[in-house]
């Protein structure tokens, strides 16, 4: 992947000090930031619409001047996220199809699931239950690929159904009548799934579990220590070492401001997410 080559050389690094390896480029980290900011915005404005009879939804609505403001912000976040999604698809298309770059659609570094992911899933479960050793993961573990595809599918489904509601008379030209009813069901159920999944499963798997607690900083700094790299993504580390490409991935120790900035932003994002999760669950079971 090209970002691998973009990593600065290690020349000025002091030996003996822990080495850092690049996992995410600046563009990828920016994409994640846009994704989680707009997602939080969409969730915070979508939930009051979904659970509009709940006390907190009505209170929020009265604070900001009714559903008009909420719906406006929801649509604004939706447009930003749509642009981000289109840019991402365009990048994949350019790199994978136009430039025929290796490792986009298949191979060790691809987001596409492979047989190893299936084996890893079962091995991971065996390890959970104490029936085997912990599997060693490649660049993207199976749950990370699931996160990616869940978001990818979610954006298509939620996006399409959302735009179908937004521009209902236009979509009515080629959708059957009952589809206009169905899009609300699809939008709200898929949105609910996304919110519940991200704010519980993704948060815990990626950030809050003991191995990463309180959060995995790699998505903010872009780099991780050699020890962390070797431990979390052993197969990738070993593969790069065997291919002699490990050096090309070397990065710099993240500046302390960046780490602190990431911690603050991440903590805020996770806190908002957990608050929204609690509100969702109370409203869902209070219905």
């Amino acid at each position, binding site marked *: 992947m090209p970002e691998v080559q973009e990593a600065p050389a290690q020349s000025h690094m002091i030996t003996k000090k822990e080495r850092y390896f690049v996992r995410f480029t600046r563009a990828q980290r920016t994409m994640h930031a846009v994704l989680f900011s707009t997602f939080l915005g969409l969730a915070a404005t979508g939930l009051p619409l979904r659970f509009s009879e709940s006390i907190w939804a009505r209170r929020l609505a009265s604070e900001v001047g*009714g559903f008009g403001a909420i719906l406006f912000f929801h649509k604004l976040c939706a447009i930003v996220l749509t642009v981000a999604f289109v840019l991402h698809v365009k990048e994949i298309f350019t790199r994978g199809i136009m430039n025929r770059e290796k490792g986009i659609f298949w191979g060790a570094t691809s987001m596409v699931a492979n047989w190893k992911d299936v084996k890893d899933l079962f091995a991971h479960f065996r390890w959970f239950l*104490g029936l085997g050793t912990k599997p060693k993961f490649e660049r993207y573990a199976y*749950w990370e690929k699931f996160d990616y595809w869940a978001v990818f599918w979610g954006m298509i489904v939620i996006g399409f159904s959302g735009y179908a509601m937004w521009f209902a008379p236009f979509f009515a030209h080629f959708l059957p009548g009952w589809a206009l009813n169905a899009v609300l069901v699809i939008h709200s159920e898929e949105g609910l799934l996304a919110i519940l999944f991200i704010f519980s499963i993704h948060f815990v*798997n990626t950030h809050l579990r003991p*191995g990463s607690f309180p959060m995995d900083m790699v998505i903010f700094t872009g780099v991780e220590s050699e020890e962390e790299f070797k431990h979390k993504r052993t197969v990738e580390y070993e593969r790069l070492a065997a291919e002699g490409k490990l050096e090309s991935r070397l990065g710099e120790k993240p500046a302390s401001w960046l780490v602190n900035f990431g911690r603050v932003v991440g903590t805020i994002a996770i806190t908002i997410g957990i608050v929204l999760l609690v509100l969702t669950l109370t409203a869902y079971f209070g219905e």
Partner: protein
Amino acid sequence: MAQADCLACHADKGLQDAAGHNISVDGDTFGQSIHGSLGCNACHTDISAYPHPDKIAKVKCETCHAGQASELAGSVHSNSDDHPCTSCHGVAHSIFPKDDKRSAVYALNVPKTCGTCHGHDGMAEKHGLPTVFPSYIDSIHGSALTKEGLLVAANCNSCHGSHHILSRKDPKSPTFKANIPQTCGKCHAGITANYFEGVHGKAVAAGKTDAPVCSDCHTAHAIEQPTAAGFRMQSTPICGSCHKDKFSTYRDTFHSQLGALGGYVETARCWDCHEAHDVRPKSDPHSTVNTANLVATCGRCHAGANVSFVQYQPHANARVRKLNPALYFVRLFMNLLLIGVLTFFVIHTVLWLIRSRYDLSKKNADGGPNA
């Protein structure tokens, strides 16, 4: 006896009787009042000469006002402990015609006069009366009257009458449920005619008093401008109190979800599609929800609404397979997806957490930091 003879004593502002009541009379005001041309003993008939007895008889208004007195006798105010006439018409010696601004029963003064008892100042509570005055005064009628000074705005008398006020349970009362459309129709003639064209009006006319009349939706005293946010917010549940199944399916829709949040309240409420007064069954070709009229009805809000667009079901029930099979299966699929994904990953993640905690406690390198 001339007024001047009486006023020789009673003009003294401090004049009191043996019980300490002020018995002074302002001759100028009395002279201007509706009774100003009468001699004092026209009402105080037991006084013919001076000196007169300390105790004098209670004035009997019915001597002249027999019609009003008999109406009052049959009304809810018949057993008033206070003097029944002056309670409303004000101080006995300063009673003015009802089109005089100084009159206690002048249109703009009526709510205040009735509010003396039917207000929230404790008198209502003491007498077990409904505190209707605060509701009325903030209502569209009340503010037209008090803020704009609009004489035609409904005051208490407009609906309840004056001397012959009856309980709303009395079939002869203008506020008896079946009579309310006519009562409101005294001013709102056009709306009332519309109302009687619709299903509710026809039902009421046929004696089915379960059907709503004006006050069921608009309330009796706290009547708001129907386009006001408060009214639009409160009124769907009123329709829903009878049309329970329609209300429940309405609440599943985006119209309701947005509508429940308030603020801008233009999202469709019951009457935006069904009409407020001339409510007709879908089968009626003049009904706004008749299939032939849907493009126009939906198009009031949804610019560009077309025949396909109006296939949308504003009361779709996704929970019943027979009614909306496609919608039922979409909802089922989405629910199974949601439950399936979450169940799998909750088990996965909880097991992972337990295993990680276990390894941490064992100081097992495999589960240590960065695992």
